[in-house]
């Protein structure tokens, strides 16, 4: 396995399109900020739906190196991947909670290239 600690993190955005539990204004604003950031990113319609269908893309996300995931509660995201048989690695994964944070804070954490874990983001391996 290659050392990915010096690679830039990837960005994954979850739209939560199947139930709209993430506030619409927050997810719209975050998507706009990502879209205008000039950075590449991947957006999925709904991580819950992917977990339910054991979507093989979850494996790619879990095994693809450092990643920041804009979604919902870190505890939920961690175990959604596990439920699909594709557990997230212990290191290099940050989940930024769009159900609790402002769009500005979410985008700041996603787009900050220099931080792995900021005080208000949640490495999935940390107890809450």
């Amino acid at each position, binding site marked *: 396995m290659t050392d990915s600690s010096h690679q830039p993190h990837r960005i994954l955005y979850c739209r939560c399109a199947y139930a709209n539990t993430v506030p619409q204004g927050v997810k719209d604003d975050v998507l706009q900020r990502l879209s205008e950031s000039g950075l590449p990113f991947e957006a999925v*319609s709904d991580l819950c739906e992917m977990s339910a269908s054991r979507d*093989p893309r979850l494996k790619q996300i879990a095994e693809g190196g450092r990643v920041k995931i804009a979604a919902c509660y870190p505890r939920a995201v961690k*175990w959604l991947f596990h439920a699909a048989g594709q557990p997230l690695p212990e290191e290099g994964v940050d989940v930024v909670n769009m159900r609790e944070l402002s769009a500005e804070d979410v985008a700041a954490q996603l787009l900050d290239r220099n931080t792995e874990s900021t005080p208000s983001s949640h490495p999935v391996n940390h107890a*809450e």
Partner: protein
Amino acid sequence: MLSNENSPVQVILYEGKGASPLAAEIRLAVLSQLLDKGFAVALAKEGGRQIPTPPLKGNQRLLVLGDFVGDAPSLEDAAGQASIETVTVTGLAADEVLGLVEQFREGQPMNEPGKWKPWFPVIDYDRCTNCMQCLSFCLFDVYGVDEDNKIQVQNNDNCKTNCPACSRVCPEVAIMFPKYSGGPINGDKVNTQDLEREKMKVDISSLLGGDIYASLRNRSEQAKSRFSKERSPDKALSERKKCLTKLQQAGMIPAEVLENLPSPEEIQRRAAAAAAKADAALKAQTSAN
């Protein structure tokens, strides 16, 4: 219900070498509309590192959209298994791009937002003690055990949408429904103080035996903390009743679910079967240890 279907189309918005960036408002509108229709989209940029595309299966197709300079390039799957198409979207509005993607999908089945809700329990194994209460409680065979007799969600399609009753009877708050509105069932942090104050083991047999609706009428005073409100046995029973009644009234109940509708005898039978399953798993665990 198509919860085991993977999306048949993957979309890449390509803004790398050989293509011009889309206008900001078009890019955002395309992203929003595709995501809201259930498609995944990767935005690829010049020199950017993107999440690698997974191996495409035979029934999956990759659509690369871009404002290409000149003709859109031709791409092939090196393994020869999947269809990859590149399309120039120069001058197209977002809804026209969505139409292209839908056309590319060719009516293949996929879960669509608004028509299906991914509602199923997600177990937090950092908290789960493998006590089997969830297995005992659920009448719909959602839960089972693996080869090591560890509890797992085996049939998430059996779960009744918007019913989080099993999470309310979990003594360790280990069961989440990420689409639920309130915490800690939605995955929010578990309030340790609440957990200690309200520690409560639900007597499953009392929930399932006899006239369960009588117990609803005789409900005891609810504790006032969020935790106890979210985890009371009365509320769990109420939700079970609501689920069953809703199914009963819907008139479109599959035969296997119809069998489970709440005559007290049927509930007791199902409950006994679930309890036996849980008991067997617990005994197997004990003997293994």
